[in-house]
């Protein structure tokens, strides 16, 4: 592989965004027919590099060569003409259109939709990616939507297929299916650039790995010759402390009890919740696993009080029915919340940290006296959160958007943990956060539970839940499985639940029939 001309060779790629150097003289060589991993933490510059390879961004310096010939890619259309296909992490599909219509739109030709549908069926069968061309996209699961994107690329006979974090939205079983497909694609001689931060996957399916850190290439290696720990160390630059966590089961009465919660999503393409039962006990971390878009957002909104329940008794908090109580009523009863979106939901981007402390704490932290805001009080709170959670920042009270993802996440988690809540509900606590911050946040959640608080973690990261949760339930199509002790729970069993088996008929069928 080292002797042959690389299929794609990027040399000395530099890309700046203002003061930030996202790619700093990056070299990358992808051989024909190889599965090449691009490894790195969030913010290491992986996405910037692949956007350059796909013609979405133009490098400030450096060159690209395709089969030894220097090229400049001004648009994705040019990249596609060369034979480069890309499957994005966030799909670009029209929900109201059918599978075939979506694919036909992406193909640059004038082929009629019926012909596209025929070709789509044959390609999808050949690669083991079953798809019904006539179904509307909004009816499909995330895994099926990803199949559309992959088939769409394969129909253009690519020579290089770029996949951006493809397994982050899949169940373990769907991941196996994807790997089988990738093996077939590779056998046909197509090269694959596989972007991930999941080390075990990379070691399993990749021939070579390029590791990025802070925009620079720190190593190129054969991942099969490395251990997950050594890859992690190259990726992070230091040893990552594992979370100290011994699963325990609490026998205390639940602090939060949800009984038969059903909710219509306000979003027309959202997921309705149906018949959710859940208990969260003091001293424990209860985890809710599930593939994105199965009702996690709606569940968080219902539990936090951003959407009120139909009946007050369906949510019992500290012994009181609060289904009709707004978020501050629930906060005053000892609950605290950390939503998934840092910027725009948990924090207002352009407001200062002290304003953002006020945002979550104005009802509970004594920041407000007879309508007046205690500015020194909020600023003092910011200082305490910053010290306790190692939030790195420049000035004393910067705008929330000036912090990096990991530091802002530490702040929004910390501002609520520090007030010693009796219940913490957190969604995707470490999504898009660097390994150091993620470890600190996970440890803080475990410590909070051990100090006697009830903790509910909604996460799509199954590894994370196995690391910190004492009990685990799975959400699928707006329904929730019973929570089971994590100790002795098999990944495969959780994976099957995430794919919907074991839930019986109900919402799933209702959705299909709609």
């Amino acid at each position, binding site marked *: 592989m080292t002797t042959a001309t690389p299929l794609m060779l990027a040399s000395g790629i530099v890309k700046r965004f203002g003061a930030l150097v996202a790619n700093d003289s990056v070299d990358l060589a992808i051989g024909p027919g190889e599965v090449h991993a691009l490894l790195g933490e969030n913010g290491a510059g992986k996405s910037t590099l692949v956007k350059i390879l796909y013609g979405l961004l133009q490098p400030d310096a450096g060159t690209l060569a395709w089969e030894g010939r220097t090229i400049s890619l001004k648009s994705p259309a040019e990249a596609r003409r060369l034979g480069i296909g890309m499957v994005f992490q966030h799909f670009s599909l029209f929900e109201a259109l059918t599978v075939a219509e979506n694919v036909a739109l992406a193909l640059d030709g004038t082929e009629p939709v019926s012909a596209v549908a025929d070709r789509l069926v044959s390609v999808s069968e050949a690669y083991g990616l079953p798809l019904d061309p006539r179904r509307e996209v909004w009816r499909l699961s995330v895994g099926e939507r990803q199949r559309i994107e992959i088939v769409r690329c394969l129909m253009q006979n690519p020579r290089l297929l770029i996949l951006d974090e493809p397994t982050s939205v899949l169940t373990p079983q769907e991941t196996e299916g994807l790997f089988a497909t990738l093996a077939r694609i590779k056998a046909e001689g197509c090269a694959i650039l596989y972007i991930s931060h999941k080390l075990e996957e990379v070691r399993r399916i990749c021939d070579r790995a390029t590791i990025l850190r802070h925009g620079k290439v720190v190593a190129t290696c054969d991942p099969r010759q490395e251990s997950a720990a050594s890859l992690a160390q190259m990726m992070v630059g230091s040893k990552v402390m594992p979370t100290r966590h011994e699963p325990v089961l609490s026998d205390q009465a639940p602090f939060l009890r949800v009984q038969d919660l059903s909710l219509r999503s306000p979003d027309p393409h959202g997921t309705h919740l149906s018949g959710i039962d859940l208990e969260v006990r003091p001293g424990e971390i209860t985890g809710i696993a599930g593939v994105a878009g199965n009702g996690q957002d709606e569940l968080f909104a219902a539990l936090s009080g*951003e959407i009120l329940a139909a009946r007050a008794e369906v949510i019992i908090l500290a012994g009181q029915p609060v289904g009709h109580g707004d978020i501050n009523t629930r906060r005053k009863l000892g609950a605290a919340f950390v939503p998934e979106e840092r910027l725009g*939901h948990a924090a207002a981007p352009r407001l200062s940290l002290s304003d953002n402390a006020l945002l979550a704490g104005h009802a509970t932290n004594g920041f407000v006296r007879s*309508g*007046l805001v205690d500015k020194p009080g909020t600023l003092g709170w910011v200082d305490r959160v910053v010290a306790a959670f190692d939030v790195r920042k420049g000035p004393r009270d910067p705008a929330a958007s000036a912090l990096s993802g990991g530091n802002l996440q530490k702040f929004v988690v910390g501002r609520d943990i520090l007030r010693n809540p009796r219940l913490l509900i957190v969604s995707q606590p470490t999504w898009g956060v660097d390994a150091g911050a993620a470890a600190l946040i996970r440890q803080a959640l475990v410590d909070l539970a051990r100090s006697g608080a009830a903790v509910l973690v909604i996460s799509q990261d199954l590894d994370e839940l196995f690391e910190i949760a004492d009990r685990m339930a799975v959400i699928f199509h707006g329904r929730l499985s019973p929570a089971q002790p994590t100790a002795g729970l098999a990944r495969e069993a959780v994976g099957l639940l995430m794919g919907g088996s074991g839930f019986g008929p109900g919402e799933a069928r209702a959705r299909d029939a709609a």
Partner: protein
Amino acid sequence: MRLVLSKRENSSRWMSLLSPLIAVALTIASGAVLFAAMGLDPAKALAIYFLSPISDTWALQELAVKATPLVLISVGLSLCYLSNNWNIGAEGQFVMGAIFGGGIAIATHGVANGPWVFPAMMLAGMIGGAALAMIPAMLKTRLSVNEILTSLMLVYIAELLLDWLVRGPWRDPKGFNFPQSVMFEAEAQTIRLTSDGRINIGTLIALVVVVLAAFLLSRMLKGFEIRLVGEAPRAARFAGFSQSRLTWTVFAISGALAGLAGIIEVGGTMGQLQPTISPGYGFTAIIVAFLGRLNPIGCLIAGVFLAITFIGGENAQIALRLPLDVTRVFQGLLLFFVLACDAFLIYRVRLVRSAPQERSA
């Protein structure tokens, strides 16, 4: 070759204070060019326009009278705009305030009355302005109707209602058939502060409103709520603030302030209702709000500046025989430059040469 607007990483606080001043400077410079093109001496014309309104105490009082409604209205509009509620109908709320307050003055005309009349008129004016502003608020919160359109169209309804009233039921029977109401009694006129000019209690009220609004925005939880709803609606919901309740609140406040400005103006400068009572204060206040950076103190400064253009325009009409439309041109130029300076504040403009074309593969 193409122009690319790219977002700046961080915009400096100094520049954001400086940008309205740059806009004012550019407006004056364009004005000089405009006057020169019309064959006038730019220096003399600009002096009449911008210096004569601040040259003596009488002129300064006139300036205060003109600035008062602009400041009152623009402070209310700032609260709306900060919270993403686009009330464009302050002109109508101004007129409605004059109708409600004027109604009391006409009803008590010729009857024994006391010093309670003008305060009652101010209260009625605030209720009238707020009532009209509640209509777009209700349509927005209940039916998701765009408030820009509804508030703007209600302006015409309020203006035509006033027009009909002064030509019909409220016409002065002894007024030689002129379309105007009776002259208000002394108790129904805005309380004057001096004996030699027209400055009235409205100016003091406007100053108090500026201080209260500045305090509200910087120190109170309600002010934080207003800023947060405008900045990040989802985060505001997470904070437990109700967006629709806030929409009602800010529309009510801004409507009440516009209505108050309306009755103060009618009671202070005209002393009666006429078919047209405003030279466009409600619309000019939009410029004032943005020139003042949606900040109450900024609105005070900007309101005084815009008042200068009103008076300068009148002076120029007399001294230079320029049409009053020149004032409108000035105000339009000013808003244009304010928005343009803001665009440069947020974005960086680059000229990108298209890369040399590759040979086709």
